[in-house]
């Protein structure tokens, strides 16, 4: 079923507004964007490397990841996606996908055809700019991850990624008082950070012991945001958020 998306909570609009000023008309056009909404359970591929998709997926709820796999079957997660992200937006212009996207938790995903996206972009050039800006910020996140995984160690590497997740989740209204739901497993952190699961376990234990994080089930709380930022050498400039409050 293809239907416009009219929720009280529209993460795409929140996400774009965090990096761009939308007019009322542009906001309405985004609200009316037709999409096929599907619930996908955890640990499923949404698109795979080599696919030639005719639509892109907007994440409405849940977490996904972008990943690649080595010839030996080892997975590298190159970014985490949160509500409001369109993790395969590049497929609108790049015909063959050079990465896969999988769910981490159960997700609600809105599939938007490339024809509808092109039509939206033709009618609203400023939305085209906003999408362009979004893909440029994706590239900035990848640069930051290469630096983080290549050059920071243990606790600092983990702290940096947790800081990034918290700031991005805050921009789409999913953080309350430095706490958020975080359904990412130790094994997924290992694949994202280039650690083993044993190393992830030790790093998280150390961070708990030092009072940098509190983890209860899937709920993450940051008791001292300034200290976590310091440990993770985290500077949110690369996220290019319009609203400085979001990074605080």
């Amino acid at each position, binding site marked *: 079923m293809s239907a416009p998306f009219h929720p009280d909570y529209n993460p795409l609009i929140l996400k774009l507004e965090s990096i761009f000023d939308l007019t009322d008309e542009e906001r309405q056009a985004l609200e009316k964007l037709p999409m096929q909404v599907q619930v996908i359970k955890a640990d499923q591929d949404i698109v795979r490397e080599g696919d030639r998709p005719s639509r892109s997926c907007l994440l409405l709820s849940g977490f996904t990841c972008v990943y690649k796999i080595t010839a030996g079957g*080892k997975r590298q997660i190159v970014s985490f996606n949160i509500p409001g992200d369109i993790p395969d937006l590049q497929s609108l212009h790049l015909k063959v996908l050079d990465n896969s996207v999988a769910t981490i938790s159960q997700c609600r995903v809105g599939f938007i055809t490339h024809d509808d996206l092109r039509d939206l972009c033709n009618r609203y050039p400023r939305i085209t700019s906003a999408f362009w800006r979004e893909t440029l910020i994706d590239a900035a996140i990848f640069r930051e991850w290469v630096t983080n995984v290549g050059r920071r160690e243990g606790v600092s590497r983990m702290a940096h990624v947790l800081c990034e997740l918290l700031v991005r989740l805050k921009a789409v209204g999913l953080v309350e008082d430095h706490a958020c739901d975080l359904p990412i497993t130790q094994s997924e952190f290992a694949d994202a950070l280039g650690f*083993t*699961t*044993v190393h992830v*376990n*030790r790093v998280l*234990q*150390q961070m708990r012991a030092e009072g940098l994080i509190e983890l209860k089930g899937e709920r993450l709380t940051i008791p001292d945001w300034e200290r976590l930022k310091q440990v993770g050498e985290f500077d949110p400039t690369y996220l290019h958020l319009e609203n400085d409050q979001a990074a605080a």
Partner: protein
Amino acid sequence: MSLTLQPIRVATGFDEEGMLVLDEEQRLLAVLTHLSNQYDGLAGHWYLEAKFGVLEGLGQPTYPDLDAAKEAIAQHLARRR
């Protein structure tokens, strides 16, 4: 390839016990750590904590026991030749 093991304590920050893995000529190949109860599902296993050049490509697996660890390391070395 006959490998020998030497007990050692490993300063992982959690005061864990481990083993040095040496080849026939007493060259240090790897350090294995015996995982304690803090690791869900992996307690009691042996983790390839550190390895040296000739073990490149082995990754950093965990093994259910020391025999399995020695066998995997010996096989890796045999394939290298």
